[in-house]
């Protein structure tokens, strides 16, 4: 059992949907980013997705791209992101942390070294956008062996024939991408998402969490209502881009979490 499995077990007992928040590690700088991350559990976040900055985020819209640029310009590195998680774990040993990003910084560090470090600092899972099932040997299988969850993206283009391939080596939860597109784009529609989630759930016992295009407490409630939970990223990152004080960022997160938890 990982922290992720424990969290879904707890939510099931409480009869609640999961609220997952995304922020970019090191945005706008290490100190403020760490302060925000440390405040997320108290704001109602069940699972923290921590973005790993990359120069070429091909699946992200401008909000997340710019967040990555701010973090890199402020000196964020993979080493510092690991350090951030270590620091977070000093005061919180239960909230799962999923690292989300692109493969090259991990490949550059060396997969085995990275997995050892990730496990040591207390990372629970990985979402690596540019590693489809066809590339499972690269990181997915070594990560599972190291005891980390590897969370796969399923999308509207993942058809019936392909779905078992996508689900095969996934663990922790399934991340359903609500739209064909990039992060921060069009608003997700619960009516479109519901049948897709049902389709995935008929093939797996894993929880299905829906992200992309969720920006308000109302959408969070609607989308969480047709799934096991929802993710908000760009809308929170935009608050950080607008230089909102930490307390304001966290109160916005709280409103989103309350939305999702109402579902």
């Amino acid at each position: 059992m990982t922290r992720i499995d424990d969290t879904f077990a707890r939510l099931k007992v409480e009869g609640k949907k999961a609220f997952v928040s995304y922020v970019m590690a090191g945005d706008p700088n290490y100190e403020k980013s760490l302060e925000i991350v440390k405040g997320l559990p108290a704001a109602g976040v069940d699972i923290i997705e921590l973005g790993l900055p990359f120069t070429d985020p091909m699946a992200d819209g401008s909000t997340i791209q710019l967040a990555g640029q701010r973090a890199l310009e402020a000196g964020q590195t993979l080493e510092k992101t690991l350090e951030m998680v270590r620091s977070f774990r000093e005061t919180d040993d239960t909230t799962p942390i999923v690292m989300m990003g692109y493969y090259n910084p991990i490949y550059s560090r060396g997969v085995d070294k990275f997995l050892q470090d990730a496990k040591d600092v207390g990372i629970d899972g990985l979402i690596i956008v540019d590693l489809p099932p066809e590339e499972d040997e690269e990181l997915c299988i070594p990560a599972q062996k190291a005891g980390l969850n590897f969370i796969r993206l399923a999308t509207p283009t993942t058809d019936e024939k392909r779905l078992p391939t996508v689900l095969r080596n996934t663990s922790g939860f399934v991340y359903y991408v609500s739209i064909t597109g990039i992060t921060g784009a069009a608003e997700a529609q619960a009516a479109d998402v519901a049948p897709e989630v049902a389709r995935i759930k008929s093939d797996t016992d894993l929880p299905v969490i829906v992200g992309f295009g969720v920006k308000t407490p109302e959408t969070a409630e609607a989308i969480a209502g047709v799934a096991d939970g929802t993710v908000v990223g760009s809308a929170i990152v935009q608050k950080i881009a607008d230089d909102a004080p930490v307390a304001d960022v966290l109160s916005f997160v709280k409103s989103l979490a309350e939305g999702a938890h109402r579902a």
Partner: protein
Amino acid sequence: MANDLFNSFMTGPDETGRFGKFGGRFVSETLMPLILSLEDEYEKAKTDDSFWAEMNDLWTNYVGRPSPMYFAERLTAHLGGAQIYMKRDELNHTGAHKINNVLGQIILARRMGKTRIIAETGAGQHGVATATVCAKFGLKCVVYMGAHDVERQAPNVFRMRLLGAEVIPVTSGRGTLKDAMNDALRDWVTNVRDTFYCIGTVAGPHPYPAMVRDFQAIIGKEAKAQLEEQIGRLPDTLIAAIGGGSNAMGLFFPFLDDKEVEIIGVEAGGKGVNAKMEHCASLTGGRPGVLHGNRTYLLQDDDGQILEGFSISAGLDYPGIGPEHAWLHEIGRAKYVAITDAEALEAFQLCCEQEGIIPALEPSHALAHVMKIAPDLPKDHVICMNMCGRGDKDIFTVAKALGFEMNTGA
């Protein structure tokens, strides 16, 4: 040797899209089903006579193939050593080798029922070729181009617009070719159902590197036959410039199993391959990584963040290189060298003066390496270089570099 499969360099990629450890399919799940169906469609087309009949008809009557094989007599005498032959792909319709590949991809797109074509472009040659073929077939065309390149390649931007394409200046990241490719991928993820991504070089997720190579291999096939006719044998050395590496792969591929033929790829050395990274020489100054769907040599920092390249040539200004070149480099079948901006400019001028050919800055890099090695080679040594593009688009850049005041009327 040429027919010995066990020793062949021409059997790649494997079924996972790899050349050795390079290549692969590093894309998001949204794109994966489309990549697989493209692979199916290409595998079918490869052995379909009607596909190649359509290609050959267009290559002959629309592009103007075969392109000539030209003995550069005065340049040879001037350098005083090896005989220099030029494969004249700059004489193709649209002025570069790019259209060889675009035709193949657009015919595939039509077979797949796609109605909207997107492309990235650096120097603008691939964008112009794509806009041209889209105009010919009445397809909607959107070209992503780094804002910096839009500025330095204004004539090609106007050409694309005349041809009915929408040119989108890319300001994300630092507004260069790699950012244009990122934005094209973002567009593709968003419009995956009706859109075909026409990649301009031998890079990207499998099957693109193999597919683009196969379409460009017409260059090497013709060169082999033409040299056989003109000199009665294989050349001793092949030389071509490399950004992503499509013109080079096209020339090299049919010769890979002719082990007596020396193969040299020329990367853009910018201001010099040094610690300041003011160059685009991925093989000479980079290390393996994963970007834009494939594993290959990349310019990157210690943290795996991608660095911007630097070159006077917008067409070579890319921090990666096709995965097959990365493999040929590692196994030693091809040799890769770097040429600086200053050396390329000198070659550009020499080619104008000695041969009456205004070359693009990209093949000027190849020619600069020819200038370096030809004088010390015996007179019966034959070098074939790929003159892959004409230089009309570059005259403003060259004028500026040479300090020549040109009134553009702008």
